């Protein structure tokens, strides 16, 4: 079992009002595949991602990822778990501005204290077609290039699960499509389970399964 979400409840306090995001969310991924989660703004996509990444805690229920109950891990165990198992790609790339492309990609390997971080990062950057831009800083890269660096960073430590939050949302159509192709092909070759969160149905259709997040429930999209 890759992922199992069991009776998850999550609410948020907004001013004096309590907003219920998930009432009783259940979901599971049994084998390695690409999954898209569709949802409109405010449907709880970001909350789901933060729960899956262990950045937020559930109010009730459990999330098992590769057999580990994320709710039972403390902060340092969660950090160690994330570094070994998880890759995340954001809509706004979120690269570290003070590090160049190569250093950004090396970072997950350095956190894992892997010896050949530079070589692996170079290889990964080559795969995303940025071997000529390794010494460029985020501010010197175009949107497409920055997202490719973010993809390289997400894959370099070979995580088993990859979360992608609207990865082409900030890019033009053509660049967005190229980035998506790259993401899907890498997840296939690296045998990584991809959970793509998007509001774009066309994009979602490129994944093996498409779910829709609506009224706090995940349902297979018809």
């Amino acid at each position, binding site marked *: 079992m890759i992922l199992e979400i069991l009776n998850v409840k999550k609410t948020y306090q907004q001013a004096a009002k309590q907003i219920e995001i998930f009432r009783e969310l259940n979901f599971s991924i049994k084998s390695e595949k690409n999954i898209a989660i569709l949802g409109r703004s405010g449907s709880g996509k970001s909350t789901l991602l*933060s729960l899956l990444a262990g*950045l937020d805690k559930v109010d009730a229920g459990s999330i098992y990822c590769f057999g580990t109950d994320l709710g039972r891990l403390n902060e340092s165990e969660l*950090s*160690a778990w994330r570094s070994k198992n998880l890759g*995340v790609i954001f809509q706004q790339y*979120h690269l570290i501005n003070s590090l160049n492309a190569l250093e950004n990609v090396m970072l997950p390997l350095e*956190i894992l*204290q892997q010896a050949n971080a530079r070589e692996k990062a170079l290889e990964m950057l080559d795969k995303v077609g940025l071997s000529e831009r390794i010494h460029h800083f985020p501010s010197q890269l175009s949107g497409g290039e920055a997202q490719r660096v973010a993809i390289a960073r997400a894959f370099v430590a070979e995580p088993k699960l990859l979360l992608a939050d609207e990865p082409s949302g900030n890019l033009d159509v053509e660049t967005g499509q190229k980035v998506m192709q790259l993401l899907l092909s890498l997840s296939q070759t690296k045998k990584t389970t991809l959970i793509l969160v998007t509001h774009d149905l066309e994009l979602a259709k490129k994944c093996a399964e498409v779910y829709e997040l609506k009224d706090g429930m995940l349902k297979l999209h018809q």
Partner: protein
Amino acid sequence: MKLVLKLFLKELKNQKKLMAFFCFNICLALSTLLSLESVKSGVETLLYSKAKDLMGADTAIRARRKFETDEIHKFHTFYKNEEIKSSEVIETFSMIFAPKQEMSRLVEVKAVSSNYPLYGQIKLQNGVIDAATPFALKTSEIYISQDLRNLMGLEKGDFCKIGKMNFAVVDVVVDDSSSSWRGLDLAPKLYMNLSDLHATGLITKGSTLSHSLLLQFKPEAQNEEVYKRRQAEFYKEFSDNTINITIPRDASGQVSRVFDYLIDFLSLISLLALMLAVTGISFLLRGFINQKCKEVAVLKSLGFSNYQVRCYFILYILFLTLISFVISYGLSLFFLPLLQNYLMNYVPAIKLTLNFIVLSKILFIVLALNLMANLPFVFQLQNVREIILLREDGNTLSLPRPKLSSWLPLMFFFFLLCIWQANSIKIGLVFASSFLFCLILLWGFFSKLLNLLANLNVRNFFYIFNFAIKRMARNKASSLTSLVALTIGLTLVVLITQLKSSLYEEFSVDNSEKRASLFIFDIQDEQLSFLDKHLTGMGHQMSPGAALIRARLLKINQEDVEAAQADDYETREAEASRRIRNRGINLSYRNELDASEEIIDGEILVPYEEGKMPYPGLSLEEKYAQRMGIKLGDILTFDIQGVELIGEVKNFRKVKWTSFKPNFFILVAPGVLELAPKTFIATLSQISDDKIWQIQNELAKNFPNISSIHVNHLLKKILSLFEQMSIGVTLMSFCCILVSLCVISSIFYYQMAEKKKDFSILKVLGMGHTSLKIYFILEYLLIVTFSSLFCLALGNIMGYIFLNQIFDLAFNIEWSQLFIILIVIYFFNFLISFLGIINILRTKPRNYLLN
């Protein structure tokens, strides 16, 4: 303009953080400057109101010699239209011997005639002496100061011997308006009748004394205009430059000279703190303007002119400066009563207020500094074009870097401020240049260092360390500002600590074997050999007596040396030059130079042979020559008790005055002054403190007209005064560090959003909390470490240059104090960064990373 104002007011609500950091940065430096200006103005006001009490007259005519009777008559004639009352005072030094206590000490004898004091009052244990009830001392009676009573254990009714006469102590002076402001007295004071002084036999040829004629003017003549006019006329009428005319304004200036020096120096440091704060503010405003680039482009595309854009940002700068000024004013109002209470220990009756002139002066300074520092960024906005909005990277617009020359007005203004604040072109220029030099040096050095570190790839380093170095090196603007601000603040503390420690070392008792222990003066020609024998009999070796001949400089190269009158505004250099011109000089001669002096320019003096040489040679102390504008080869004419002496300047000497050996501004070649009327000065060296008191007792018994100074005892007094003054300087230097810390912590907190984003990314990538804490603290501590290392080097080099090269004193490194200071700074920096990190660790990454 209405639209600009409207936009400005709307935007203001969104910039609370900027406003807070702006004020946080500048308020400390500004309130310090306000407080110091208040102290300065308070002292000036108080002294001016007390000036007549201090000098005890409307006009005082003084000389460092005894006036002849006909001279005094001429003075009265000159002031006949103004004068209603007068009094005479002679101040001299003597040994006093108390038989009951078997003790003798050096005292300052103030012998006064009837009518004293014309102004002010002397409070005795039993009564008050003032203009209405002047001195009523009978023959052989004295009033002693509390210091003297404490020093010798003298009480009312005790007898003591001064010169040839015995006196009875009839009362103790509790408070004396004429001397309440003197920072350091060479010896405690006593009062006696002027007629008694002559009977003591203390006044002989060439005795060290000061003679004053104090005048009280008619009520209609008691105004500044008359004082000044008559002073100028007096200088024209009496060409004798050994005579000084003091009017109340000069008196207040003379009394507060040491205090003014201290306040001016403190103000210079507070200016430095203000400049550091302005540097921090510039960083913040640059960040703010940078953020607004896109908005400016949008406004321009909607028809905003460059002028309107400039007005918008200038309004910001003015508003923020005004807000911080008001807060600083509030802070000063809180601090001033505390400061006043403290200062009242030293300056009773001082009242600290912030008047309109002080406030407008400081407001002008801070407005001008902020505008000059930030307008270069504002003007760069005219290069932001609307077309950039069409570019793909329109979101990441950045402000073009201004040319370095655009900050020249700021530098020029800072130089002017320093000169004005120091009241000295020389000190102001040296201070401002040192600051500018440090700024350029540090900026250049740290810039290179950061470039180097940015590309450093040390694989063996722990990755967090590597990562922190890169972050510090690549956030160049913020790191550079932090490094420079902190290093300048720390360098100042290191420099002051080193100067203090070296001066202490120089004057310390442990160092006493390098200088004289007892300084003996007013030795008459005929006493010299007896004194030498007497001291040899006691087992002490006296230094050869150095002749002292009182003279007056009449001409330099045939041009008369006239007494100079104080201008309304004069720099320290002009004041020093005026003081040195308006006083008599002591000449001497010696066959060979003392170990404490060396010739730095010109040729050695050879004995004068009449007929073979046109003039005898002269050797001048270098600083005296500088102040008088005398060059090698100049011909000087002196008057020695009516006899003219002409000499040619042959060399300049450097003198180590702290040796306390007999040294002189002017030495004349041997073979000229041997027969002139003179007294002698001599010293005893390497004698323990107890022995010195014993020798002083012997001297007082056997040679009553000879006076002596216990050098270590005097140095202790100097060190104690120095200690009191150094508290202010040390506090101000720490204030500078606090300002630097404010600058770097506001940079740290202002970048909080970016740090929180980085934290979120690193957390998602799996970096643990401990590693994250280390990473953020490390970046901060790296800045402190580089600053500390560099400030140690720079502070010590500057200390060495100041002490060794300029003041000719030994440089002594005080490692333990420096170590403590650095530990404290590390602790504070750690605390600031740790508090910041707690804030960062509370961040919820989803708020920064997810949509």
